[in-house]
């Protein structure tokens, strides 16, 4: 499939040592996941079920113990192939390791991927940064600021803008809206929808908030202890969950719409 990112029968084991003995931990077990162009796939499941590990394998930060990643129908194996893939597949993580460098101005942080991949002539980079800031709903003046001069929601949008600088085809988002206030979260979700509808961007969207997944995603994959237990169209899975684990996950979601059927406008 053109532009599709496919994880084919991925297994990942870690060696964990505890009290002198080394044990094998199977974080991901024989999982397959395909993201078609323009599709938003939600990846859900409890903490530790392997969501982040799988997504890191899909962009080559982590190597699979078994299984293969293909992009555009071609397997991605060598360093050069991963490097090429990262022009089309970008990721945004919530963790501080990929967060912004505290001493680098926002504009420079956004221009950096262009420089690394030698894409756009230096003279045009500033213009491209301004356009991207506007696209994520921030004022181009933000380019002069440092990360600590931004609010949480603004910072998350800058992270998103940075991942979008290379105009990727696929974006992997790991818990990017969890820490945000609902009003800011709604702004980020609106942006993701606009990118999907306008540019045909596809997303892998990892979240523990099933309310957000239901709203944003077209398809959902439910993982439990390293394995996929259920997947399907969002409506089907949410309205008629087949697996007991999916049902328990849905029941745990705090939801004010249970107070009344559609009384809020």
């Amino acid at each position, binding site marked *: 499939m053109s532009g599709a990112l496919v994880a084919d029968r991925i297994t990942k084991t870690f060696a964990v040592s505890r009290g002198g003995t080394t044990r094998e931990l199977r974080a991901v077990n024989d999982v397959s996941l395909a993201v078609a162009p323009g599709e938003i796939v939600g990846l859900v499941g409890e903490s530790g079920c392997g969501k982040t590990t799988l997504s890191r394998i899909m962009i080559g930060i982590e190597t699979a113990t078994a299984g293969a990643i293909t992009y555009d129908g071609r397997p991605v194996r060598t360093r050069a192939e991963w490097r090429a893939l990262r022009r089309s597949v970008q990721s945004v993580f919530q963790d501080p390791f990929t967060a912004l460098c505290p001493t680098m101005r926002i504009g420079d942080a956004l221009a950096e991927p262009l420089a690394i991949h030698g894409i756009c002539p230096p003279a045009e980079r500033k213009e491209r940064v301004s356009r991207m800031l506007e696209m994520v709903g921030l004022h181009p003046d933000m380019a002069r600021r440092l990360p600590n001069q931004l609010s949480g929601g603004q910072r998350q949008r800058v992270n998103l803008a940075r991942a979008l600088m290379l105009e990727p085809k696929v974006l992997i988002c790991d818990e990017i809206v969890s820490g945000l206030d609902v*009003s800011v979260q*709604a*702004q980020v979700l609106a942006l993701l929808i606009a990118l999907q509808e306008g540019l045909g961007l596809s997303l892998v969207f990892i979240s*523990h908030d099933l309310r957000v997944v239901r709203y944003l995603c077209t398809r959902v994959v439910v993982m439990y202890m390293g394995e996929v237990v259920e997947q399907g169209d969002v409506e089907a899975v949410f309205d008629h969950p087949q697996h007991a684990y999916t049902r328990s996950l849905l029941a745990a979601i*705090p939801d004010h*719409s249970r107070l009344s059927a559609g009384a*809020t406008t």
Partner: protein
Amino acid sequence: MAPVLAVENLSVSFPGARGQITVVEDVSFTLEAGQSLVIAGESGSGKSMVCQTLLGIAPGAASVTGTRIDWKGRNLLTLNEPEWQAIRGAEIAMIFQDPTAALNPLITVENQIIDAIRAHRRVSRAEARARAVEVLGLAGFPEPEHRMRSYPSELSGGLRQRVAIALALSCSPSLIVADEATTNLDVSIQAQIVKLLRELKDRLGLALIFVTHDLGLAAEIGGDLLVMYAGCAVERGPVKSVLTDPCHPYTRGLLRSAPTLRSSRANPLRPIPGQMPKPGSVGAGSPFRSRCPVVVDGVCEAQRAGWTSAGPGHDVACHRFALEGREGLR
């Protein structure tokens, strides 16, 4: 029943470059034994600051003022530090967002709870230990006799939060203040902790203040809801009335931007445009006026709105609502 806690006109401010910056303004509420109050509002609205004043742990630079904070007949606004120490943990206890911050990594769970109990009560180690087992059991900590010998780092996040709850329960407080106590937890664990807090409230007759920015969680906790915006209380009432019949433009905006399990793109979320004003920049008018779709010209810039009744126990601080009721909000 007489309330155990009555907060009257609480304000908190910090010294700024051009005078005091008010971060909590004129907040009032009451709470009865066995009842819960949820405080909701976006980041920076002053929720944690309200909690901290109830435990006498507001930052040193903060100036805390008000008519009175009545706690079982005493005024918390006039306490000195030794008096606070007798109340904090013993009568009013707090559970924080990050359980690791509340727990000492170098001391076993058992010894931390024993120390906390013996700091407030003259009991033997054996008695304190028995109480530790009891409160860990109440908090749903599995096999307390055995596992209380663990260090916090050996426990999962959910178990650590249960230890923090046990610690809070250890001296039989009458009020527990939970500030985003489930925010970092996995949804399944979060649901368990919320259920536990609700049960403890009913079983032990505890008063509970639960701070969250998640309206879904507010609905699960129940009781009363206080919605804060930029330091001000803007709407209050039974959780169910406020969430099913929101009457302040900000509460309405929050609900329109919060996804539920019934949301779909066919009915898009509507983010509240703009941003919350910076602390100290609100001036005299309504704190929400820069983002409000139904501003009353000439009034909202000039003065804060007083409370208008919107139903039994349900009040709203909004000029538009005062003038036209629900019709004016559309």
